[in-house]
């Protein structure tokens, strides 16, 4: 601890995440939206080469997915641990791991790195989106300290404070999935460097329920394009109106 009672390494870890691509999560009444900004967008990147590897968005089990912000290598370790935890639970109890249980387990792991071993904390914040039988659709956020919270709407990564206040203003209770998607895109557009949104710089996913089963869907570029164009048009109109 520092003399003022702070853990600098944990704070520095949280600071480092502010340099990474933004991630926004919104809880809708019929699903959860995760929208992220990709930072590695060189046209030389061969996204087909390593199967379905993504930069920001990962599925943890049938009923839960996660968006990461921070050091990618650190994130990979945590994602793997999440997946293991989900399957261990499934093997022992023959059911989906409840979302909060998954989050708590990973957070306990992260907390360990702030207390023992002389190892640095994980430089990753995560947004977890999923559904379980007890609590329905849920959105959680965790950070390098090992703290976590359940959220209706939240943002991590670059410009997350600005995104958070935008969400505070524009989020409505009981918003539908489609509106939530549009809001997420609007917020992410504001936080990104470029002047207008491009579908190939985003990874966007939804968690919904269809026919009694939870569905994780990573939106394709073709699916994103109309929404992105609509978001850009709305932004243009706002600027003109001003």
């Amino acid at each position, binding site marked *: 601890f520092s003399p003022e009672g702070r853990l600098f390494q944990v704070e520095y870890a949280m600071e480092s995440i502010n340099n990474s691509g933004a991630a926004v999560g919104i809880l809708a009444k019929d699903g959860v939206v995760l929208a992220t900004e990709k930072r590695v967008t060189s046209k030389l990147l061969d996204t087909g080469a390593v199967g379905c590897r993504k930069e920001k968005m990962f599925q943890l089990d049938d009923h839960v997915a996660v968006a990461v912000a921070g050091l990618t290598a650190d994130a990979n370790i945590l994602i793997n641990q999440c997946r293991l935890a989900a399957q261990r639970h499934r*093997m*022992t*109890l*023959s*059911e989906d791991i*409840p979302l909060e*249980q998954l989050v708590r387990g990973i957070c306990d792991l992260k907390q360990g790195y702030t207390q023992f071993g002389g190892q640095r904390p994980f430089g990753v914040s995560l947004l977890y989106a999923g559904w379980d039988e007890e609590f329905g659709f849920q959105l959680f956020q965790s950070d390098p300290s090992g703290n976590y919270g359940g959220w209706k709407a939240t943002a991590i990564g670059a410009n997350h404070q600005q995104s958070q206040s935008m969400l505070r203003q524009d989020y409505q209770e009981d918003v539908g999935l489609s509106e939530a998607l549009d809001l997420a895109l609007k917020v992410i557009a504001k936080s990104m460097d470029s002047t207008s949104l491009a579908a190939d710089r985003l990874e966007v996913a939804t968690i919904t329920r269809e026919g009694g089963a939870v569905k994780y869907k990573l939106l394709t570029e073709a699916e994103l394009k109309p929404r992105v164009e609509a978001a850009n048009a709305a932004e243009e109109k706002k600027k003109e109106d001003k």
Partner: protein
Amino acid sequence: GGGAPGMEYVMGIKGKDFAMACVSATAVQQIITMKHDEDKVMRVDDHRMLVTSGEPGDRVQFGEFVCANVRLRNMRHGVKTSTKAVASYARQELAKALRQGPYQSNLLVMGYDEGKGPSMYYLDYLATMHEMNVAGYGYGSWFVLSMYDNLWHPDLTQDEALGLMQKGIDEVRRRLSVAPSSYMITVVDKDGIRHLKTLEYGS
């Protein structure tokens, strides 16, 4: 071991909206009946129970182990572990122990889950697990399983099931030379776990 596991009698029946167990209530060591009122039903929570049979030390130890861990999980995560999950967890523990120091214990995991209804899982010491409508352990069950196969139907009421349990006990006492002398009948439904009857016979 101390007991003679085959001499015990356990029968479980799943009905329309309940699950019922009839268990011999004798605790036997060698040739001595230590207890006539041993309750072999362990309550996991208000709506889930384990009906344990087998080696006396193991069945209690394993039953308590499963109950304790399920209760811990319920407390930690603010959930009610479902009947299937309790059974799956117990099965995994039996499987882990099997090739090291097996629990010589068989059990029925019976419960009532809100929204799903009653269920019953048959587990044995080899880590077998089956969801069943009618199941049992012990020599007595050999006579009664086939009787219940004829008489069971999916809309069984509690009164009908109680009648079946009585029929089962009567058959065991008529034909099994080492039939137990006392039995306890317990039911679990949406209102919880209730002990229905204790039956004691002279010999």
